[in-house]
């Protein structure tokens, strides 16, 4: 008897892939319009993805803030916020998307406040010149979304990995998923699909994000024919814990540098030198993230790094009482807001205790994906019925994220949820064709069936070897070419040999899941490398040692990657402009950073 194409099937109006900041909002908004919504999440709702880990700060312009009863600044306006975002993103951002971001930032915040999200503070964030940041907790945010999803009776499939999208008559018509607990293949029929799958941070050895972020959404969208934009733009966080293992990947040192404790922090190299004085003598450690990250990497390259490849975060010059004072400030904030986040309550006091006697090893971690699935201001991907919202999408920020991602994901989630009803009206379910289902089933089952080949852990280590060596903050042509050759060879030739090398069980088989994720991470890395190679300049968070200038005359353009017979094919495209003209001229990276960075750092505070 022929093997079944799937083990179970489910039908819904809208499939939302990913359950967190963007997915939760998309689902709630589609359901508000009376649609039958199904969420599929690789993890458990409110316990996965990047959203739970966010600080979190939600941005909105001063006037909209005042309208919501928050202490906003009335000199501010939506237009002014847009201008800042476009300028600080070095003009690659899609201005229509930026306008929508600002408009929906307020709507998303209104939703969250109505649903009970606490407000800890309203203050200046992201070096903005005016207070535009509502400070809350990521954990509380995602729990509030979960409660709302439950209240509305939205169905959620947890621990379920969507593997590929289905299309028919040129439209998205569902997806095929793997139930990780049972190993069953699930066919999901949907009239529209919203991808809310987050980034691909796990493709990099040293990253700050959660384990489920492996670029599945970007890769499946690409396979389905959608385009990617700005894939070379990867945001690193300097001052992420490298060592000891238990604290590894925590961004607490960086968070501290952003608070009142910031001016007390020194970054040292292995010779005990405050190396920032050679890179940015005026602002030192308080320079921009990008400059601090580049400086740290240069120190490591020149042999002045720490044993695990970073630099030192030092507070030792403060007295122990001074360090206790810093902790007291944090603790006061946590107590006041009854915030129980373990990273703050447990890890932070331990790190501060350590910092009294030794310097902490910190490094540049991959943190946020600026580029992703190309969408327009309505979150449409170009494939009818396929939407992408949140961090998996690209085009909003341009070359560096300069404001809140939590706002982005909520705003875009809501936009996507609102777009579904109008689209779905008149669209019937399409029965997926057998060949498509069979090809996906084979892709899923192959690594389990193979009895020899490359074990996924070995493959992962090799892939991380490539990212560690070539896909760092500082990039250059030769290294990028080596990375590209290696990654594209791994994807085309080696990935077909991935196999589950130990237990062949279908239930909770880590190796099996990793095999599927590796194909996606590789594809994202390859596209990111291709775009990095093509961009022969430095801009925002993107730095090429061999092209250190920001070149507005040639490079104020976006990289767009489309799927040509299964292979990534790159073209350049002008940014979408509505009201803010594109700049001209060529300047050094440092000059560009100084001109782009928010007004506070440019010393232009209005009084």
């Amino acid at each position, binding site marked *: 008897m022929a093997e079944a194409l799937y083990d179970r099937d489910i039908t819904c109006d809208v499939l939302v892939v990913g359950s967190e900041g963007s997915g939760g909002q998309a689902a709630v908004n589609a359901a508000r319009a009376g649609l039958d919504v199904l969420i599929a999440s690789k993890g458990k709702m409110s316990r996965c993805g990047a959203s739970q880990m966010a600080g979190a700060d939600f941005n909105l312009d001063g006037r909209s803030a005042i309208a919501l009863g928050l202490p906003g600044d009335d000199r501010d306006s939506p237009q002014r916020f847009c201008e800042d975002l476009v300028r600080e993103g070095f003009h690659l951002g899609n201005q229509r998307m930026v306008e929508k971001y600002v408009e929906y930032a307020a709507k998303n915040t209104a939703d969250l406040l109505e649903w009970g999200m606490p407000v800890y503070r309203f203050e200046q964030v992201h070096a903005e010149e005016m207070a535009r940041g509502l400070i809350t907790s990521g954990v509380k945010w995602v729990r509030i979304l979960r409660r709302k999803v439950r209240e509305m009776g939205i169905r959620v499939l947890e621990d379920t990995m969507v593997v590929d999208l289905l299309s028919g008559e040129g439209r998205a018509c569902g997806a095929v998923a793997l139930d990780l607990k049972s190993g069953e293949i699930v066919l999901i029929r949907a009239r529209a699909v919203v991808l809310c799958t987050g980034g691909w941070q796990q493709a990099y050895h040293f990253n700050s994000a959660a384990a489920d972020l492996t670029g599945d959404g970007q890769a499946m969208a690409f396979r389905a024919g959608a385009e990617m934009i700005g894939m070379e733009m990867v945001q690193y966080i300097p001052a992420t814990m490298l060592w000891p*293992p238990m604290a590894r990947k925590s961004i607490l040192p960086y968070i501290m540098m952003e608070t009142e404790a910031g001016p007390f922090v020194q970054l040292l190299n292995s010779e005990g030198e405050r190396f920032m004085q050679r890179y940015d003598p005026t602002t030192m450690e308080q320079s921009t993230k990008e400059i601090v990250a580049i400086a740290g990497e240069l120190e490591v390259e020149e042999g002045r790094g720490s044993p695990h490849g970073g630099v030192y975060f030092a507070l030792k010059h403060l007295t122990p009482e001074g360090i206790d004072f810093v902790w007291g400030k944090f603790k006061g904030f946590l107590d006041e807001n009854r915030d129980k986040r373990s990273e703050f309550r447990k890890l932070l006091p331990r790190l501060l205790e350590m910092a009294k006697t030794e310097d902490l090893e910190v490094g540049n971690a991959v943190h946020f994906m600026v580029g992703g699935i190309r969408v327009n201001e309505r979150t449409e991907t170009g494939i009818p019925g396929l939407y992408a919202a949140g961090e998996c999408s690209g085009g909003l920020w341009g070359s560096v994220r300069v404001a809140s991602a939590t706002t982005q994901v909520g705003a875009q989630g809501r936009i996507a949820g609102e777009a579904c009803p109008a689209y779905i009206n008149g669209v019937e379910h399409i029965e997926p064709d057998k060949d498509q289902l069979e090809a996906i089933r084979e892709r899923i089952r192959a690594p389990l069936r193979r009895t020899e080949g490359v074990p996924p852990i070995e493959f992962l280590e090799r892939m991380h070897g490539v990212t560690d060596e070539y896909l760092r903050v500082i990039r250059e042509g030769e290294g990028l070419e080596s990375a590209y050759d290696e990654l594209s060879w791994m994807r085309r030739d080696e990935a077909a040999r991935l196999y589950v090398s*130990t237990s062949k069980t279908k239930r909770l088989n880590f190796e099996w899941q990793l095999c599927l994720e590796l194909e996606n991470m590789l594809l994202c890395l390859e596209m990111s490398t291709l775009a990095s190679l093509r961009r022969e300049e430095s801009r925002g968070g993107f730095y090429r040692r061999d092209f250190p200038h920001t070149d507005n005359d040639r490079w104020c353009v976006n990289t767009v990657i489309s799927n040509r017979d299964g292979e990534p094919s790159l073209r350049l495209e002008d940014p979408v402009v509505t009201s803010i003209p594109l700049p001209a001229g060529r300047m050094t990276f440092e000059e560009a950073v100084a001109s782009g960075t928010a007004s506070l750092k440019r010393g232009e505070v209005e009084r």
Partner: protein
Amino acid sequence: MSHPTINVRCFRYDPETDPAPRFQDYRVPLVEGEMSVQDCLNHIREQLDPGLAYCMNCRLGFCQRCILKVNGKVVLACETAVEGDIVVEPVNASEVIRDLWCEST
């Protein structure tokens, strides 16, 4: 430089194929600096036995999906430092799906 090695005794059980749960011992080298129970499990999965099933997501105490019994006490694996030998079990052995992962994980 050689580092002390500890014994990690792990609960193993596949209700579909195993007649009964068993324990498996793994030797895990401690590195200099604090290591968590989760670091030990990761070492096992990456270097010794990729077949071991357990859950983790954020590594930093947010998701609470790494909840386990360590030396008889219910803890979060990513938050719990390791000093010597440990015995690792699922929080609820009666509802195990596989190894350290149970229905309520």
